[in-house]
């Protein structure tokens, strides 16, 4: 059997890849995808630790996280569509009205 620590290490790597995606990409949609990737890394940690503890609370939390991610995706993509309609871009460097 694979130790649970391997799952946690994989979760850490996936989370860091998501962080790197938010940092190095300028396309808003890809940054959004990276945030979803971080959510999934945390989901993997939830399920793995729930398995370790022998409880199913982690799985129920993952269910709620998936729901919140769906709501977030709907609202976030609507925001992206609205911004693109006004500014003709999805590049985060060009959306700088709020920058000091």
């Amino acid at each position, binding site marked *: *059997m*694979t*130790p*649970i*620590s*391997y*799952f*946690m*290490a*994989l979760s*850490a*790597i*996936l*989370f*860091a*890849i998501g*962080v*790197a*995606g938010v*940092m*190095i990409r*300028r*396309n808003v*949609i*890809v940054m*959004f*995808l990276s945030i*979803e*990737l971080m959510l*999934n890394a945390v*989901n*993997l940690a939830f*399920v793995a630790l*729930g*398995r*370790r503890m*022998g409880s*199913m*609370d*982690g799985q*129920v939390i*993952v*269910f709620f996280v998936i729901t*919140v*991610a*769906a*709501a*977030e995706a*709907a*609202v976030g*993509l*609507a925001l992206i*569509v*609205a911004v*693109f*309609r*006004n500014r003709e*871009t*999805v590049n985060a*460097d060009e959306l700088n009205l709020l920058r000091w």
Partner: protein
Amino acid sequence: MPPLVFAFLAALAIIASLGVILQRNPVHCVLSFALALTDIGVLFMGLGAVTVGFLQIVVYVGAIMVLFLFVIWLLNTQADALKPRGNLGIKFAGAIGAAVLAAELFVTFSSYPRMREIRTMPPDFGSIASVARMLFSDYLVAFEVTSLLLLASIVGAIALARTTTGAASPALPVTGGGDAPAGAPGASIASGAPARESA
């Protein structure tokens, strides 16, 4: 889960995730992310969370990724891919920071002593019935609040993304159109102006 299967799935997940952040075409990023999500769903099933694994594939890959694809195709952002890259210093610093974070998390998680599953699982661990029983007893309030959240997000998404094509804004110039009166309501629509006027 046998170690060989885990090694294969883990390598596939890491490669697909790197594909998400390294490819230039957003459609390829979304497809790569769908692969990573399916892979994580299979990992869930290997951990005994069969219900959550199938939910992951159905909801995430089947619904959310399709929403992403539709938005990308709707926006037609191909022009952005041809622009020069951004600040390389920021990207370099971001990559270094993420690598440091990965090393830190990796050491913290994998050096924790004796994190090895010790208990014997109950036979219905992760089944639909047991997850539903927990969802509708211990987490009932959270479940009901989730429905409110979904309703609010539906209303918010429609309100944010909808266009009011009925009211023509007088600020937009009327291109072509011959003797159509410039200030008349609906003139810009009748003369073939781009239908991008937003509220």
